[in-house]
């Protein structure tokens, strides 16, 4: 009895001692989450005006979500699909291209290899968006001859994203390949595999974590990219979510607050749905990639 009493007291003391810390943490969490809660509240609030929004709505309504998918002036569903399509294709393309080039830099010794690696390091330091004027003119020029790749096309934008993704991700990929022992492919080749078969059947399965990392990094980057998309895409049906929402908020933002909030929630949620299942790869993949043999 007495023992239990002291144990209880000790536990109580610990809670008391820890209480300020937990309180502080919850205050910080409130700071981190407040904007998100607030925008969610706006999306289910009966009013669509910013001025009348209450943090705790009188009653919950899903009207804004309905408006979002039925308003012909703002084809939100199209924007979301465009974004998922562009980000998905870019991410897959980046994984394929960087797996190939990373493998070459890691395994083959060819003239100009060191120079290429160094140039790659320099090039990836130059933010692609700085050359936006040039990219705009180049895409317009390409569009004169191949309209499917010009201004205001998704393929054109994907090409631009792919180019921008090469530098950094090739480095990441090469670092990871460096950690995989050579003996594995060598034995495969002794068994009669061609070098490409060894690459495809032996190496690719081994480096799956870094492929996931590159996929997700590139997906996130393209999903949130704004400047290139805003310059290169024009027609309302062609826009990505970032450019579309900007278009949505350009006029009378305050009065369309409800539908905008619903759009923000859907945009954020669809992003999270893709991000969360893959996030554990990021930490493990990045740390493993940086460790040298």
């Amino acid at each position, binding site marked *: 009895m007495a023992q239990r009493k002291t144990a209880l007291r000790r536990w109580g003391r610990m809670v008391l001692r*820890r209480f300020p*810390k937990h309180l502080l*943490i919850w205050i910080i*969490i409130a*700071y*981190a*989450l407040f*904007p*998100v809660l607030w925008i969610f509240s*706006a999306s289910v609030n009966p009013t669509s*005006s*910013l*001025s009348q*929004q209450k943090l705790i709505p009188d009653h919950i309504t899903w009207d804004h979500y309905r408006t979002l998918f039925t308003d012909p002036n703002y084809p939100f569903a199209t924007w979301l699909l465009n974004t998922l399509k562009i980000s998905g294709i870019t991410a897959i393309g980046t994984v*394929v291209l960087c797996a190939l*080039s990373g*493998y*070459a*830099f890691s395994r*083959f010794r*060819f003239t100009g290899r060191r120079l290429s690696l160094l140039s790659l390091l*320099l090039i990836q*330091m*130059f*933010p*692609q*968006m*700085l*050359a*936006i*004027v*040039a*990219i705009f*003119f*180049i895409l317009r*020029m*390409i569009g*004169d*001859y191949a309209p499917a790749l010009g201004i205001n096309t998704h393929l054109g934008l994907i*090409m631009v994203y792919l*180019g921008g993704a*090469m*530098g950094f991700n*090739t480095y990441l990929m090469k670092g990871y390949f460096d950690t995989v022992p050579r003996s594995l492919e060598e034995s495969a080749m002794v068994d009669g595999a*061609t*070098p490409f078969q060894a*690459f495809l059947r032996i190496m690719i399965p081994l480096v799956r974590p870094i492929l996931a990392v590159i996929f997700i990094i590139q997906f996130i980057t393209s999903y*949130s*990219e*704004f400047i290139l998309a805003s*310059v290169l895409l024009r027609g309302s049906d062609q826009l990505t*979510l*970032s450019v579309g*929402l*900007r278009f949505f*908020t350009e006029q009378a*933002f305050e009065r369309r607050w409800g539908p905008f*909030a619903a759009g*923000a929630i859907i*945009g954020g949620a669809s992003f999270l749905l893709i991000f969360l299942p893959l996030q554990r790869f990021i930490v493990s993949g990045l740390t493993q990639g940086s460790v040298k043999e």
Partner: protein
Amino acid sequence: MRSQSPLHLSVKIILLGVLDAAVVWAGVGLATQAAYALLSLLLLGATGLNIAILSRRAYPLRYLLPGLVFLVGMVVYPILYNIYISFTNLQTGNLLQKSQVVQLLDGRYAPAPDETTYTYQAYLNDKNDLLLLLTDEQGNHFLSRGESLEALAPDDPRFVTQDGSVGLDVAGYQPVTGAGIYQLLPRLEALAIPTDGLYLRLSGVRQFRTAIKQYRYDPKADRLVDLETGVSYTPVDGRFTSADGKAIEPGFQTWVGLRNFVTIFSSAAIGKDFLRVFLWTVVWATLSVFFSFSLGLSFALLLNDRTLRLRLVYRTLLLVPYVMPVFISAFVWRGMFNENFGIFNRILGDLFNVQVPWLTNAMWARASLIIINVWLTFPYMMLISLGALQSIPDQLYEAARVDGAGAWRRFWTVTLPLLMISLAPLLIGAFAFAFNNFTLIYLVTAGRPAVLGAATPAGATDILISWTYRISFQGGSGNNYGLASAISILIFFMIATISAIGFRMSRHLEEVYG
């Protein structure tokens, strides 16, 4: 490498041949249209492909080429092109090539010294071919299909009388009458029918008039002569300009050397904008990283306690701001900072009856942006700090404690210096990222509020990159691509310097503490 079966090899060569044929076909097309930049890219790619497939030594190229195509086409080439633009005067009013301008001016006409007028009757056949019967002041008739003038003898058998005047009867052609003539006018306006060194040009709904070419371009002397006045024009600064300074529009692209760079530093007005924008960019990046890191590190210290309950839950919840796409957070914060209806001003108004001009006053707008950026980035700082904290060995703290160092002292002498070894490069990276964080600035304030008297569209919250964007695409008095490209090259050198400092610093710190 193993030798290949003959079948494999021949399939490969046939496919390559087909592809090369396509490249040649496309290349000829590009060459005839003088698209040399695209042509060279195409040839470069095709050459690479052939070498990669045919040469054994170039085997690695097969792996590199697919990525290389995009890297060269969408990054390297744009960078080079950007450098080129920065040495030209490319801007609104100077967008055309010189040859295009010469061609354009060649299509301008002036009235001939002693002009004659011609009335006309137009005819069309069912293929929409045009036929004109022209009659000069003396009553002579001429026939034209648009390219040349053919005199008709007075007794030509094709003459007929139509509605009391002379007409033509050519098989298949019907006279254009009534309102039909108005639909035909754009076609007639484009005509310049040569005759005896003069040209017949449409000069009214019902008549043609003799005209001369306004300009003659002499490619050897690179001189344009106005045939009407005799004044000669030479290219100055991307415009044909006469000796007394009169310039012909439109201008054309031309090489201007370092002028764009010199303008940034020597032009008082633009230089002032540059300095202001540059200073704010540095302040913005520094304060963002400083506050965000301080906050993130403090939270990491709070959470870096293995006995803390709910630690993982807390960590996940604190990651939310980092995981939200930036463009969504930017809009949400813009709504919260709204001056009239935003949540902050509603609370402040209810409690203290004050309204803060969050996004409309220069200083407040800058503060708001930093507040937003700190919210966006502190989870990242927390994550990297947590990782680095866990790698500091406990013995070091033990030793410090034995030596009598308090918690405060331990933090400043053990924790922080050791953290900096691994975090300094990441902080420099974060600085470089904030330095170029176009999306946030553009979506929250778009550089506003505007600054009165600025020579370029440079607002109070514009950072270098958003300023560049606005000069390129939102110039009030036209877009100046040359200037924007020059600034973007300066930005590249700044970023390169920052990165170089980052590399050196991490090496230096490792030497000291590692």
